[in-house]
């Protein structure tokens, strides 16, 4: 695997390889010294054209835990502000000979284009409303830890599917891992033709009792001004996940940041069913695993070690 551009491009085996690798990094995370020398002397560029807390901080920390030199570029305050094109920015950053470029961009296909312009491995950290593969991988990782397997699991993705790259990547990843997915939300926020991806579509939460996992999406306030929904109040009345709609058997997930009281009630967020904190923790180890797989995976794997990935190295 040269780049991580989408979940669409990954087979179930490739997904599982990354998750297995993440398990071994979780073990490293329990050591006193959490850093390994794997990427010492190599450079990782993180280039964010959109604001981000979780994704950018966890990719940055993942690179540091792997001992890479990290260059973090935010669009605000950089040459991007001065009108430089993406292609030229990539050419500039490629002059540092980075091993990897982690990019978030407001438009679909940006990471894929970047992959054509640089020798570095490219990690898509979100391209427009298209895909967010590292989020899907950490969500599958979180669920696999809790459930053992996603095979046959019923997962409902609830909310603004239309504008959500998380919904698209997760839908594909969950299905690839054997889950049955239903997307649910008001008809104005469900993209026409989404069922071609193999999911069920529901315009109401009436059937959500069948779900083993409820994955709520962030409801952005600006969707109201664009009249996708009449009001956040009406949205919450119909689609908010709260203890009344959630039974104790079900697991609750959310990619964050949460609008408390809109897509999720406070009680739901803080309930023991909620995996939200585990998702964030998983973000770090899964992103370490992604960088490892792309930069050190093939050549660093020792022979005769079986399927269990071990070359984590000694503490730095």
């Amino acid at each position, binding site marked *: 695997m040269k780049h991580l551009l989408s979940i669409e491009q990954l087979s179930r085996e490739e997904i599982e390889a990354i998750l297995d690798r993440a398990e071994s990094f979780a073990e490293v995370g329990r050591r006193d010294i959490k850093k390994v020398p794997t990427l010492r002397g190599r450079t990782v560029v993180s280039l964010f054209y959109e604001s981000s807390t979780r994704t950018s901080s966890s990719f940055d920390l993942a690179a540091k835990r792997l001992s890479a030199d990290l260059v973090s570029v935010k669009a605000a305050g950089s040459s991007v502000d001065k009108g430089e094109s*993406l292609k030229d920015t990539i050419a500039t950053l490629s002059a540092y000979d980075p091993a990897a470029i982690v990019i978030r961009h407001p438009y*679909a*296909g940006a990471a894929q*284009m970047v992959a054509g312009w640089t020798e570095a491995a490219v990690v898509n950290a979100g391209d*427009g409303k*298209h895909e967010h593969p590292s989020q899907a991988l950490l969500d599958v990782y979180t669920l696999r830890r809790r459930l053992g397997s996603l095979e046959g699991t019923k997962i409902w993705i609830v909310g603004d599917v239309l504008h959500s790259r998380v919904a*698209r990547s997760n839908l594909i990843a969950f299905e690839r891992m054997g889950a049955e997915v239903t997307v649910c939300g008001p008809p104005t926020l469900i993209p026409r*033709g*989404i069922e*071609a991806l193999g999911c069920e579509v529901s315009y109401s939460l009436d059937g959500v009792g069948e779900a083993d996992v409820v994955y709520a999406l962030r409801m952005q306030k600006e969707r109201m001004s664009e009249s996708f929904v009449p009001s956040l109040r009406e949205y919450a009345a119909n689609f908010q996940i709260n203890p009344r709609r959630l039974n104790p058997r079900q697991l609750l997930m959310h990619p964050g940041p949460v609008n408390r009281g809109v897509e999720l009630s406070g009680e739901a967020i803080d309930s023991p069913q909620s995996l939200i904190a585990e998702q964030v923790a998983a973000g770090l180890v899964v992103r370490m695993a992604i960088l490892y797989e792309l930069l050190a995976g093939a050549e660093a794997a020792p022979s005769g070690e079986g399927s269990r990935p071990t070359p984590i190295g000694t503490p730095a």
Partner: protein
Amino acid sequence: MSLTDALDVRACEQAFLVLRRATVLDPVAGIDAVHDVVIRDGEIAALAAPGEAEAEGAEVVEAEGLHAFPAFFDPHVHLRTPGHEHKEDVETGTRAAAAGGYCGILAMANTQPPVSTAADISALREQARASASVPVGFLATVTRAMEGTDLTEMVELREAGAIGFSDDGLPIVDAGVMRRALQYQHLCGGNIALHEEDPALSRDGAMHEGPVSAALGIAGIPSVSESTMVARDAALAGYEQARIHVQHLSAAESVEAVRAAKAAGVQISAEASPHHLCLTDEAVRGLDPHRSKMNPPLREESDRQALIEGLRDGTVECIATDHAPHQPEEKDVPFEQAAMGVTGLETAFAALHTELVLPGVIDLALLVERLAGGAEPFDLERPSLAPGSEANVVLCDLGAEWTVGEDGYESRSANSWCAGQTLTGRVLMTVAAGQVAFRLRSFSLGVAS
């Protein structure tokens, strides 16, 4: 009107040519046989028996095994001048047209600034007389500065030589303004060519709305954003007894709307582009804007089939390229940010021959008829090979394979939707208004006898 009377071209020597033993196909004139085609003094002087034509003083082209068709006419080209000459101008755009087998084109008015005054038209016509390889006509905008609110001085524009009117690039959103333009057509004449799109429905869409846009997370442009406007304008044209030409049909619903309007007696004509006839939104999956980003967008297979059916039954009377040159920096960006449009003049015949004729979807005669069908909606004579007609001839080798772009382009821009593809069928020579407008460099010609 003949193309030379209505359009402008750089005057060159009139050819005296004999196309020896060419397979001549002109379905409208009922010609389908091997002839010696004699071109002289701007006319098809004769279709003689093979090997029989008198060639004294003529340039003789050994055309055995080659096809001669009426040259093509494209009513929808963006020459980008004034304002965007880094993309195209009259000289490069008409050179591209000649290389594609066209004997005439109409240039759209959505330049910078838009072509909205008689002075604009006069200046462009002068440029064409100085630098156009094939006859070119210019449309003027329907509304001032394409703002969609006030009509241009349509009578004066017509007197200055505007062939017709179009705000192409933008729809005329206000139905009241559209109605006034149609009423005024009874005074000024000239067809009105329409880019049909309801921006309230297309919004910030960047591709066709359907399963592919859902999978890619790109905002969709629904088919109804086009078809509802086609239906509205057909109703207005019927009510005002006026005439409209619908540009670049893309959706099955739009084809149906045009068909229904024709059945109801509305004076309406329509065009479809080679890329909409050959590609679907599946081509967008690669997110490469060079080949798959245009407006209207590539739609689904059922839409493509509806367009082909429209070609067959005459609902769509012509193929128009919507040749829209852009420079690399406008296309080397993520899909949603990229400029809309692809070039098409140099590849239209070869692409459609490869994609539709060779697999047996449509026959060669229909393709030839539709590629020349863009003249009549604008009151221009359809190119014809009947003796006595103006000499507008394209000579093609239907067996020649070539790779698009490998030798560069005549156009100043390289955003061809079929760049890198190997096509079968190549234009060897184009005669436009009696002048040799193009010959393929590698095509060896007979010597004057």
